[in-house]
């Protein structure tokens, strides 16, 4: 339950009682002592950038995804536009990551207490998390678009299957154009000299030619279709693999630190073991030496005893 108003009322009552008691009052700081934290301004800038990026994505999401342009009223983007959007988005994301790393370095260089350090670290972490979320939107949208393109392509293929004429006839004139161009370039002279035979030539062979051309066209068409099919599929797979790659790189980077630590520990421990071997060897030597001396001492003492015994007798 909000009792802020009650609190403010209490403040007023206390102020009036203070005044009536004649107590001196400090000038109230009306605007509040909210000093801006110098170090947080950069963080807030980064935050603003990421938020603007996010709103940009959400705005253009519908247009970006609109692959099938049936209604002219629906906003859509041409391929060029999409490439532009892609490039800009990647640019901004890399800029933001750059800014975050810079900020990290800046913060690491500041003198601060443990609590402040934790505070700044968490601020940076939350910024990174936010950026990751926003870039996830972007990659998801891209993946969805690629999927949609493939779907529409499949749909369009189904349409052309029962009626291959329109596309073939469109192909055929282009093919005949090509052929006629090439033939015209090579057979230019005979054509000029013999107009009628060429006309006959064209008329005679047109039926055969058409058949040949038709079959050739069909083969070429199927080939190209399958190739473009494969290309589209590969594109989707590559996008998939790129996602997986991201996941893996994340994991690997996480492991990197641990592995480095383990490597240094291992090096340290091999050093320690070497030293330990050294020490043990020395200890054994000294032990042996000690034994030798003890034996010597005992021998000498016993001989001296014998000697004294013999001497005193």
């Amino acid at each position, binding site marked *: 339950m909000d009792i802020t108003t009650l609190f403010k009322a*209490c403040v007023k009552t206390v102020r009036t009682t203070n005044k009536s008691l004649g107590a001196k009052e400090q000038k109230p700081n009306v605007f509040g002592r909210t000093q801006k934290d110098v170090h947080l301004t950069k963080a807030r800038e980064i935050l603003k950038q990421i938020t603007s990026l996010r709103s940009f994505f959400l705005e253009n999401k519908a247009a970006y995804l609109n692959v099938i342009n049936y209604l002219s009223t629906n906003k859509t983007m041409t391929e060029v536009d999409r490439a532009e959007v892609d490039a800009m988005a990647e640019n901004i994301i890399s800029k933001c990551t750059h800014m975050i790393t810079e900020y990290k370095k800046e913060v690491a260089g500041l003198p601060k207490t443990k609590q402040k350090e934790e505070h700044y670290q968490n601020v940076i972490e939350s910024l990174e998390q936010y950026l990751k979320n926003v870039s996830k939107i972007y990659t998801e949208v891209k993946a969805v678009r690629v999927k949609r393109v493939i779907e529409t392509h499949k749909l369009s293929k189904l349409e052309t299957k029962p009626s291959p004429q329109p596309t073939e006839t469109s192909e055929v004139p282009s093919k005949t154009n090509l052929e006629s161009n090439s033939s015209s370039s090579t057979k230019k002279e005979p054509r000029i000299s013999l107009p009628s035979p060429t006309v006959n030539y064209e008329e005679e062979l047109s039926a055969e030619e058409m058949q040949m051309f038709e079959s050739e066209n069909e083969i070429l068409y199927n080939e190209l279709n399958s190739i473009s099919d494969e290309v589209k599929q590969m594109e989707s797979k590559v996008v998939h693999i790129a996602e997986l790659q991201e996941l893996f790189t994340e994991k690997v980077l996480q492991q990197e630190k641990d592995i480095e630590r383990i490597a240094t520990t291992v090096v340290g421990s091999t050093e320690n073991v070497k030293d330990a071997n050294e020490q043990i060897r020395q200890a054994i030597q000294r032990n042996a030496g000690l034994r030798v001396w003890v034996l010597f001492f005992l021998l000498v003492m016993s001989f001296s005893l014998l000697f004294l015994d013999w001497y005193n007798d």
Partner: protein
Amino acid sequence: MTSLRQKQINAIKQMLNLNQPQTKLGGLEPVWKILIYDRLGQDIISPLLSVKELREQGVTLFMQLHSDRDPIPEVPAVYFCAPTEENLGRISQDFQAGVYDIYHLNFISPISRQKLEDLASAAITANCVANIHKVFDQYVNFISLEDDMFVLKHQHSDAISYYNINKGDIKDSEMEAVMNTIVDGLFSVFVTSGTVPIIRSPKGNAAEMVAKKLDKKLRDNLFDARNNLFHTDAQAGNFNFQRPLLLVLDRNVDMATPLHHTWTYQALAHDLLELALNRVVIEESTPTGGLYYDILFLFPIFVNVVGARAKNRTCELDCKDKFWWSHKGSPFPTVAEAIQEELEQYKSSEEEVKKLKTSMGIDGENDIALSFVSDNTTKITSAVNSLPQLLEKKRLIDMHTSVATAILNCIKSRKLDTFFELEEKIMSKAQALDKPLLDILSDPGAGTPEDKMRLFIIFYICNPHLSESDVKKYEAALNQAGCDLNPLNYIKRWKSYTKMALAANINQYEGAGTKTVSMFSKLVSQGSNFVMEGVKNLVVKRHNLPVTKIVDNLMEFKNSQEMDEYLYLDPKQLKLTDIPRNRSPFQDAIVFIVGGGNYIEYQNLVDYAKAKTTAGTTKRITYGATTLSNAKQFLKQLALLGQEM
């Protein structure tokens, strides 16, 4: 219908969101803030939100109120504490030192006008009134441990313990203070859940006082048009015409259950491992094994869990853990089996993932057909996506294995299964069980003196006809075993008080019992880690504890002579009326025990509600208590009371 716990989480999340209503947009930009709490605030938040969730809400730092804190500029500081003198003093100190720039003060229970004025004057002297942006009364003075269980206090709960309420030299003012604390907590429960209950309680003890006070408080608030906290259900959106039944009971209605030896997983964890705020601390003295994963030979991912010597490991057992959720009420042998099953399942998934790696290694070099690649990519994606789940599962299985092993060790060393069996027999038939009882009491290897004391007290309670000589015989045996006889004195007095009530129905625990099922042959044949030979596989028969029986009677309006003597209080009605006979049975009930609750009763209520729900009528029962005490703590309190007599 969201549970009480969920409502409390929503309230706290809203508070963390600087008391602005939360929008459902995902990926909103983070607003950084600092959380400062006192002990009570810590107890309330720790079972509800994990550190990760706090960070998601934008909390960068969280600290104790009474610790040294450095000034952190510009970010708002959210205070969450109880409005005690100590806390307010510390807050005024903070004002003076100007530690933060923006203050949002949230008080766990409502702050009095006087204290608010003191705070205001402190703010004026420190010249930071403009920095205080919001002051809120959050009515969340209770700790939700589960979706349907709450307690009022955890740390510093001595003031409202059973001992404090029942001790002989308690002063009226102290009693008033204790009652006020309890009523405050119950009031916040109802504000958070947004409903006004119908209150019933027995007459003549602390429960009656609590019930009357709560009724008065609810009534005052309802008829105070200005700040009525119970906005109509239209706001919450649930047209809940049924009002819940609040049943306030005193611990004295059933003294045997807190001392009973338990057999269900959660109750065992509470009894033996001191489960507190859904956390258990286990001492591990053996190093756990390591795990090695090899995914896609290009990316070796190394997962190694190596423990050290005698390490104290904190395990969190809460409702997000699926295994815990489904097995916390099952008897212990079932739990052991279930852990085995989970382990098998996990091993098979691990095998699958490894197979994937080999198939990738072999086929990825030769085959370049697109279909195969697509197959593999989907397989890889699924494997990678399921990998964190697998790791999490492994961690949970590890944790449960260590918890269960710790419990099993305790059971084996103290022969708790025999105790349990005997107690169940006593509570059901109360026949002449002298021989086995005397054997156990004089057996030095079976259980600690406290266990024996518990067993004997239960025997004493359930046997209305016990001659003096018998009692002397037992006392001698107990003395020999080294038990402290003070609790017994207190129980004797208690029994004499309640003798009249018990005269009618001698045995409130009827229907209990166990039957030994030879199920552990299956366990042994599976070569399990849990060598449960020597531990009897006891299966508990369904029975109702006294508390459950009372709940059943009152919810269904069964005609029972005792129940008619219970008070009936309805805060929404202006005049006190009689008990309406034509009401439909209640669907929601909140059972509150003044003086200490335990997991056994909770489990019993849960089972009862489940049985009723499968039978047709939906019943939701929430269990609440002033605090949770396991048998050891309760016995200690009884000893203190006995000593004072």
